[in-house]
């Protein structure tokens, strides 16, 4: 019975943990000791209950504590008055009824009230009542139990009122485990057709009868087939029909039957269990009793030696339980186990009841366990606990890290329409457009040298010549950029007239795509052939280098779009999504911006909605903000954000200001706060960036970033340095250094050059080293092999 105890125990534990504030200390761990009886919750907050404790430890149920005796009349008076009003609405009253019924059944099945099981159920009922009871009712609850006991005894002896208790039991199991036979055994007559060799139940049947005055309804189901690829479909069909049936008339108890005498350490039924979970839902296992049929068969251990019956059953049970755990991915679940033997030649006791090899009479046990399960189930449903008891991986363990969300929120810039960089450059160039004449045009003409003449130059001349060309190129690019800006500005003015002009592009097939390398045949380019369209949608595959062997490895899809809906309404979105049979991941950002220009002030309103999958959950975040150009070179940003993750909501707000000092220095400061699930995080950052003289033609810049995040009185400071320089022509060097106050950090150095190809020699070195290492490894392996020989 250990299973059942643990089960009750676990459930109560999980309840206790959810209600800890109310109950105070929960010393439940010693509860499986029989001394603790139902009558006392050990940690009731009232001093009264503590005074009762010594009495209750005696364990004698007949000895009613004197205090309760005194209280009964009062309470019953009170109770009866409320009963009339609240019976229908008050779950507590209903539970009280249930408790009485249960106690009557306990008596009827001849189980002692000292029975662990009984006490556990009662304890649970009591606990449940305590949790649900409001402050004012606490006293009532405490005393009700004793009263219930008396009431039950009274009613049971008089037989009035008639016991109104019925059981609906769903029977599941593979074919031939004896589902119908068990039903017949319970009723003591052949109510359901059985066959020792063939599946005899081919549809869902209801078998009704009365056992010891309890109306019992069995839902007999067709047997499930041994799991195999070909039976999966059939089993699913059967389960689907059961699901439909059960939906209409839910059972109180579920029995999952299996044969005790089947030895399969690998337990090939695990797909079946997952299938049951899949179709009927994980909650089905909460009310399930595992039933082992053919229990009297002489048992042999794994190695052919006969083992202790108990340990054999335990072992067998553990395997089944393990796979149920796997199916629901929750190891806390403990299903009670019943042993059953339906064979007519089974040993019987004098009363004509089947007796198991361990001397147990299984039938009353069976009924009693069913009753217990039902009572607990009812209590749960009455108190609506079932919802709170989640099976599977507890989702509450995955909480969002507030600092992380905040830093994402602070970093996320709302686009204000169009190409941001373009706009900034436009702004930069605006001032230059008028004032300066193009330097490039003022340059003296240069004669471009032919290849042969260039070769004739001396080294220094060559360098000078190339430097001159480079200088000219910079100026030329600047000039082009200016022209571009001018053109764009003109276009903007013109744009108001005709937005609809679109050239009709001829349908030209695009060149074939080049795929990733593989040792297979050629890349199937034909699958990715397409026609050039002037779509605003940009769709690309996401390549997964760790994909399937013999497959291209295009696993997800990357989508980008930018639409100018109206003149000042702009929307854009990009995302990466992959949807497969089992898995779904998404990471998307959408943004819409509306720009108004009043006088000299440009104001932009933006909204953004991001979705990101994190495990099986989705993180939604919405952000709205406005950007105001307060005065020249200064823009201020206000943002509000709402993030939802795992049923929790986080609210955030931020202010950001960016200032352009001169043409080359940009300062950005922001600060924000995020609140959610009772916690708050603050954060802010400062960014300074000095651009090179030739920005934006040459992308040289030095930037310093400092960010601070404070959460739970802890402050994390992070500073970084980003530099992009061009040490010589055709060479770019990026150095990024990041450090935080935990003394952790990262240095990134990136160097690219179109002139100095020598740096590629590093790769030659690496490959050489790898080859050497490999040779060594191979020789070691061969040495090992030789030694083995």
């Amino acid at each position, binding site marked *: 019975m250990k299973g059942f105890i643990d089960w009750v125990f676990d459930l109560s534990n999980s309840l206790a943990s959810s209600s800890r504030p109310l109950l105070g200390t929960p010393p439940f761990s010693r509860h499986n000791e029989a001394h603790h009886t139902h009558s006392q919750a050990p940690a009731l907050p009232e001093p009264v209950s503590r005074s009762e404790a010594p009495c209750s430890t005696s364990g004698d149920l007949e000895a009613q504590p004197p205090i309760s005796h005194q209280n009964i009349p009062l309470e019953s008076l009170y109770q009866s008055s409320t009963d009339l009003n609240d019976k229908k609405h008050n779950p507590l009253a209903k539970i009280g009824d249930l408790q009485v019924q249960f106690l009557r059944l306990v008596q009827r099945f001849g189980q002692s009230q000292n029975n662990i099981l009984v006490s556990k159920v009662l304890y649970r009922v009591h606990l449940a009542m305590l949790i649900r009871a409001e402050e004012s009712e606490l006293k009532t609850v405490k005393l009700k139990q004793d009263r219930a006991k008396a009431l039950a005894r009274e009613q049971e002896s008089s037989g009035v009122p008639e016991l109104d208790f019925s059981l609906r039991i769903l029977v599941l199991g593979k074919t031939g485990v004896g589902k119908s036979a068990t039903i017949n055994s319970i009723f003591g007559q052949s109510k359901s057709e059985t066959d020792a060799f063939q599946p005899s139940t081919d549809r869902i049947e209801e078998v009704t009868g009365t056992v010891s005055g309890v109306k019992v309804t069995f839902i007999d189901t067709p047997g499930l087939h041994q*799991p195999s*690829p*070909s039976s999966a479909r059939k089993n699913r069909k059967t389960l689907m029909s059961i699901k439909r049936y059960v939906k209409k008339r839910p059972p109180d108890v579920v029995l999952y039957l299996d044969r005790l005498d089947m030895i399969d350490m*690998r337990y090939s039924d695990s797909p079946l269990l997952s299938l049951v979970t899949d179709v009927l839902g994980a909650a089905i296992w909460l009310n399930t009793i595992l039933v082992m049929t053919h229990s009297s068969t002489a048992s042999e251990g794994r190695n052919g030696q006969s083992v202790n019956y108990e340990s054999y059953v335990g072992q067998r049970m553990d395997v089944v339980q*393990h796979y149920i755990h*796997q199916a629901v991915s929750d190891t806390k679940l403990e299903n009670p186990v019943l042993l059953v033997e339906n064979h007519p030649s089974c040993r019987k006791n004098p009363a004509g009841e089947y007796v198991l090899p361990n001397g147990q009479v299984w039938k009353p046990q069976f009924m009693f366990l069913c009753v217990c399960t039902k009572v607990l189930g009812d209590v749960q449903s009455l108190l609506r606990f079932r919802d709170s008891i989640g099976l599977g991986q507890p989702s509450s363990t995955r909480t969002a890290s507030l600092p992380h969300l905040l830093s994402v929120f602070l970093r996320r810039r709302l686009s204000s329409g169009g190409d941001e960089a373009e706009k900034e450059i436009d702004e930069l160039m605006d001032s230059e457009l008028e004032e300066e004449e193009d330097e490039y045009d003022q340059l003296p003409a240069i004669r*471009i040298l032919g290849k042969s003449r260039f070769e004739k130059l001396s080294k220094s001349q060559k360098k000078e010549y190339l430097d001159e060309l480079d200088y000219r190129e910079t100026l030329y690019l600047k000039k082009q950029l200016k022209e*571009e800006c001018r053109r764009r500005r003109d276009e903007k003015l013109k744009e108001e007239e005709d937005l609809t002009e679109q*050239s009709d*592009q*001829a*349908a030209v097939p695009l*060149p074939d*795509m080049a*795929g990733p390398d*593989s040792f297979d*045949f*050629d890349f199937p380019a*034909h*699958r*990715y*052939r*397409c*026609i050039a*369209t002037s779509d605003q949608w940009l*769709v*690309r*595959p996401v390549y997964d280098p*760790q994909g*399937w*062997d*013999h*497959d291209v490895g*295009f696993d*997800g*899809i*990357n989508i980008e779009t930018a639409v100018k809906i109206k003149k000042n309404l702009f929307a854009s979105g990009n995302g990466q*999504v992959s*949807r*497969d*049979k089992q898995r779904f991941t998404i990471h998307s950002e959408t943004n819409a911006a509306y720009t108004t220009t009043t006088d000299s002030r440009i104001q932009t309103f933006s909204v953004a909605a991001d979705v990101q999958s994190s495990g099986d959950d989705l993180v939604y975040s919405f952000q709205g903000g406005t950007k105001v150009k307060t005065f020249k070179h200064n823009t201020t940003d206000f943002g509000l954000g709402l993030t939802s993750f795992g049923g929790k909501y986080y609210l955030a707000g931020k202010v950001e200001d960016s200032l352009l000092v001169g043409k080359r220095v940009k300062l950005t400061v922001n600060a924000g706060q995020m609140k959610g699930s009772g916690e708050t995080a603050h954060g802010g950052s400062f960014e300074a960036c000095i651009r090179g003289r030739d920005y934006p033609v040459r992308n040289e810049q030095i930037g310093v970033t400092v960010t601070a995040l404070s959460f739970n009185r802890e402050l994390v400071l992070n500073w970084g340095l980003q530099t992009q320089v061009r040490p010589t022509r055709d060479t770019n060097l990026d150095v990024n250094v990041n450090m935080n106050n935990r*003394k*952790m*950090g*990262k*240095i*990134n*150095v990136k*160097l690219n*050059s*179109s*002139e100095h*190809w020598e740096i*590629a020699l*590093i*790769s030659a*070195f*690496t490959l050489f080293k*790898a080859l050497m290492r490999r040779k060594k490894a191979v020789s070691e*392996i061969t040495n090992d092999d030789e030694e083995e020989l």
Partner: protein
Amino acid sequence: MSKFAINGQLILLPEVSTTNSHLPTPRKHSAPSSSHELLNNAPSPRFPSLICCCSSPNRNTEPSSSGHLLKSLGKSLFFGSISPAASQFSSTFSGGGGGGDGGLWRDLFSLATPVAVADEKHSPDWDSHGLPANIVVQLNKLSGLKKYKISDVLFFDRRSKTTAPAEDSLSEMVPIHPGEIHTKAQLQNDLETLTSSGMFEKVDLLGNTKPDGTLGLTFSFVESTWKSAERFRCINVGLMTQPKPVPTDSDMTDREMIEYYRNQEKDYKRRIDKARPCMLPGPVQREMMLMLRDQKNVSASLLRRIGDRVVKWYRDNGYAYANVTNFGSLNSKELVCEVSEGDITRVVIQFQDKLGNVVEGHTQIPIIHREIPKQLRPGHVLNMKAANQAVKNIFSLNLFSNVEIIPRADEKNEGGVIVEINLREADKKSAEVSTEWNIVPGPGGAPSLESFQPGGSVSFEHKNIHGLNRTFMGSVTTSNLLNPEDDLAFKLEYVHPHLDGVYNSRNRIFKTSAFNSRKLSPVFTGGPGFEELVPPLVVDRVGLKANITENFTRQSKSTYGLVLEEITTRDGNIQICKSGMRLLPDGGTSDDGPPTTLSGTGVDRVAFLQANVTRDNTKFVNGAIVGDRTVFQVDQGLGIGSKCPFFNRHQLSLTKFIQLKRVKEGSGIPQPPVLVLHGHYGSCVGDLPSYESFAIGGPNSVRGYTMGELGAARNILELSAEIRVPVKNTHVYAFAEHGNDLGSSKDVKGNPTAAYRRMGHGSSYGLGVKLGQVRAEYAVDHNRGTGAFFLRFGERY
């Protein structure tokens, strides 16, 4: 200047894509995530209007020209079409015009060029007419000193007594627009142009004074007409010398006059006979004929309409440089329309440096020449579609950062076009090193480097070796560049195109590459319900592949080559494993599954030949693929390697895309419904390691299942059918597929299909919709009877 330029870049990234975004500016696009972006900036050449004018037959309005004009077959009416892009043609035209003066053309062009107008637009001030409002003023009554602001321009047809609508091509002949400022001299000049255009018997210009000081203009005109014609003929006069006008003497006798015109007539006949037939198709010519027959007589406006129609056809078909230059044999039964189609006389390829200076190029010219389509070679008519294609082809060589094709008028050959291809070469060499160090708290608490060994990646590329588009490239990525561990990923590749020489039309490409890959095995996966019980198995491949590809057409090709490969099978912890595993209930794993390699050691070496022949004549019909494709592939083991593997593995796949309805081709027309039938057969003979067995199930095998969910077998057969129904500009489809191992799963060593409880065969059916390159589908797995939603990139077939 109509310019076709493609500007874009190719970034080597694992994400590969093709796209064509149409952006209005040819700016450098540097989205880091875009790996292949084709920025196509090809504004369709705008030819705003046809300016119709005529020089020689203007005498027919003059009293001096007598009745003989009625017979003047040799007389021609010149049609010139100009555009901002065609301004360079002005010089060509100046010589033309049977007897007319070239200067007129020039004047016309200079008037028509919007530049001139634009300049005037900016002149700040204008003068009021200084006259009472609402009176009609003759042109000669206007003051020559004032600048008049024009408020509106009207055209009044005296014959029909109607006002021509402003959008009529008439208004485009007159470079005067409301709101502009003109002087009397300019107006007089314009009027003269119109008068001399030959379109009108008479043109007058009247001013209408407005109260606000501006001037309204009304051109009242009488159109010229000729005798009605019954037939229509169109000839190509490109590259033909225009007939030199024989100077006429004013005091010729009538006889001489008749003789003169007869000669002209004869010359013209000869000219027509000599002319090449033009491309204008029959139906369009018939359309013209009908236009002629409908009218009692040929009026100037009808000619204009015909000219417009003809030019429109050329424009629609990409012949942007085609012009109607002249209408001949007026007043006869047959109207002759002379067209200069824009024949290419020369193709010039030149290189530019970053500053736009013409320089010597590194690339060898034949490399580029090969990419130019036939239609863009001398002797063909310039077609913008071909030019576009050339730009694309050249750009896809991946050697140039900018490709421009500029057609220019050939000054030496009348009506000829020189195609100038300007190329800017991209950097030949590039190398990039990116390294990373981690900082961790050191022993003393001070931050220090985790290790001095840098992790990161090195990549390099040397393109266009010897100017022959040979490429050598490589990349190395590892967590430790100085002493690489197991996580090393590398790739070295050399591509040698034009194996048979640049001048040989046969295009064979030699490619050799050494690389490694690490992927999940679809052979060692669990069947339904067993997914979690089978730990993943990684197939680690490293080796060398050398092959030769020969392209027969754009899509059909054959490849053959040699592969040397070492295969290592590893478990989740990158440890070599010899046989398949499964998880035990106690959390451990058992490794008594099927052997993963042929040798049984977890490491196999193998050398084999590989060949692939693809015959593909599919094409796009309004975006739907139609046609059929056959692919045959074979691997032949050479008996070299671990356990001397000798095997043959071959596959044949047939796909037929059957068009179910005939549709017209063109943009905006919906796709036809298509039925797709597909079959794939594969078979292995000889030694077969499990990693080379055919996996059944997966997005490209049997949809609705994951890779290998149905099994791994020696022989496979896959059959599928799909019906595609067009919806808007895409299609929805329904499909049914079946994959079968033909009972050959048991012939794979250890029978991984059965060991991991897979069925060996399975069917699926479903529905889907194609959204651009993405297919979104709901597929029902028939074995389990459950459906799932999938998103995939690219086609299944």
